[in-house]
């Protein structure tokens, strides 16, 4: 079986995520782009696992770890977003350059 098609999909998703991360101004969409990049990694992990078939399913375990960490990250991220929005009535990252010199 070929892994190429999965790798191309994952690379495309990852590039989409990077683009969204750098270009979008809405903070929720930026978080969404980060999720895209994480899932692109997950696809790669599953694809290589399916090709190698390691005895203890390392690729799948890693993918589940990434999902777990991503869930926790989104939880914290959305909580921060919520607090910022309540205080500043805006979800634009350009309005959030407070932590500087």
């Amino acid at each position: 079986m070929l892994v190429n098609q999965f790798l191309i999909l994952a690379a495309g998703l990852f590039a989409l995520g990077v683009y969204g991360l750098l270009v979008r101004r809405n903070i929720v969409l930026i978080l969404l782009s980060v999720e895209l990049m994480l899932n692109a990694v997950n696809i790669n992990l599953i694809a290589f696992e399916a090709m190698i078939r390691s005895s203890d399913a390392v690729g799948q375990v890693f993918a589940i770890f990434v999902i777990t960490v991503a869930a926790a990250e989104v939880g914290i991220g959305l909580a921060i977003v919520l607090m910022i929005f309540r205080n500043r009535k805006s979800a634009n990252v350009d309005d959030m350059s407070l932590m500087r010199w």
Partner: protein
Amino acid sequence: MSPWILATEEAEQAVEAGITGGFWADTAGIMLVLPLVAFILILAFGKRLKNQGAELAIGALAINTLWATVLFIQNMTEGVLATYSFEIGRIGSDLVFELGWVVDGLSIMMYFLVSLVGLIVFIYAVGYMHGDVRVPWFFAAFSLFAGSMLILVGAPNLIQLIIGWEGVGLASYLLIGFYWEDMENVVAGNKAFMVNKVADVGLILGAIILGLAVGTFDFFEINTAAAEHLETLSTVAVIGGVLLFFGAMGKSAQFPLHIWLPDAMAGPTPVSALMHAATMVTAGIYLMARMFPLFQNLAEGTRPWMVAIGAVTLFALGLLALVTDDIKRVLAYSTVSQLGYMMTAVAAGGYTAGLFHLFTHAFFKALLFLGAGSVIHAVHSNNMSDMGGLRKTMPTTYWTFVVGSLSLAGVFPLAGFWSKDEILATLGSEGYTAVMWIAVAGAFVTAFYMTRAVALTFHGEYKGHGHPHESPRVMTGPLVALAIPAAIFGLLNIPGVDLPGIGNFTRWLAVRVVPMGDHHAEAIDFVIAGSGLLAALLGIALGWRIWGKDRETQVERDSLEIPVLYPLLRRKYYLDDLALGVVGATTGPIARLVNWINDYVIDGIVNGVGFLVKGLGSFVYGILDQRGIDGIVHGLSAAADGSGSAVRKWQTGRVQQYAASFVGGVLILIIVFVFVT
């Protein structure tokens, strides 16, 4: 063999024979400590006691008198001889400092004298000082005085002697300046202290020289060494001995260091009595007697000088008593003159003669001073021109004063006759014939001025103010108590006569020291004794002829002038002026020289050093500190500040910029990993 070595052997035999004294000698050290304990106690509690400390002072001396009397009687009957020394320190390994007490004939005589006369004077002082200022302080200093003298006479070595010697000097200074509200008295105290100090330098140097040369400060070892190793020690012995003699001259008021003694009359009269009788002035004579073998071994060249000093003192200073109006000064010059007798005798080789005169003199001179004090107490003046005619109103004082005067004048059979005769006989037998005749002339002068004092004070008409009356019992009692020994104690040493069972004074003193060349007369020389007595009687007769008769013209006759002689005497031979002139003339230029050195040399050095230090300081501050150290510190902080302001610009706070640099970094890493490796 040297007689001194013989004496040492006799002393050893005495120790073997067991005449060491027993309990009373073993505990004799108590006598040295008790008055000092009293001194401290009076200082601490005197003000609260009923008699303001007098009871403590008297109690201490009463116990001492008991001890001394027992020892004196023991020494009379069987002889006492012991030395108790306790080491308190040492220099190197050989030179030992010891404290302790000596119990031998000489010391016991002095213990007895100081304690008994001191006790009587203390009792008298209770009456005399009644209602006066600072009574506790008076009795405290008085106890210190007596205690220091006991330490001095009990000393087994030169160190302890010096301790007592200085203590006596201190106490006398305190007591002479007792009425310190008057500047005059303070000056008198200072004068006494300083003249004594000049002489003390001699004593201390002499003690050091002898101590180092012999290797010990012990009297008996120094004496033995002086006798045994005469050839090797002779130079040291002469230098040390002369220096010690100088010290003795100061304390015993020998010409020309006598100038402090008449001024010492500024103190209360009991102080004068004690100072002139038992403590202070006898210390010099005591030292001469204690180191008698050493002084006997001095080169023949120095001994005549000592005798000469004594002779000048006894005659020339006796004359001064003729022209003073102050009754205490008359007695003071009389003391100086009598000390001259003692010094002459001891220096000439009359150990017993000098000490016997010291012994009798203590009683009659204390008596005379206390009598004078009684008169002063009654008329409130020291001047004989304010007295006169007191014979009727003060009979006890009068009769005791007459006994003392006759004894001092040397009238048979009172104490002064026997002791003065002893001195005359010694001078005669030692070959100092000229000095002997000077001493006979001195006896005439003594009788002359004492007759004058008695006549002006007690005869004629009363010239002062108020109504004098006899002193209280507490003052007349001591007068009577002193009049008895002043009259009869001469019988203790009649030449050639042994009192039944107890021998005589010569033997009591000779237990340890059978001194070399102590030519104690074995029988009365009637020519010498007769001329001495004749001189005394002539003096009394002449004095009585001038001052005793015709009460109206008494004062005019006293103001009689003999050209040249009287002005000379009134100026005290210009000795005071000389001493002050020498001191003044030398201290002035020296002070100016020292001031110049101070201004130009020392100040220059100090200023130069200060300038250097200041220059060094500004260099360190300006260059090293401000530029060097501060430069480093400021440079570091400026670097941190500058780099901080540069780097913080990167911290924009824009999340997507961070994300972009993050992505950029990842891309660079990918490129590095993929294409470089």
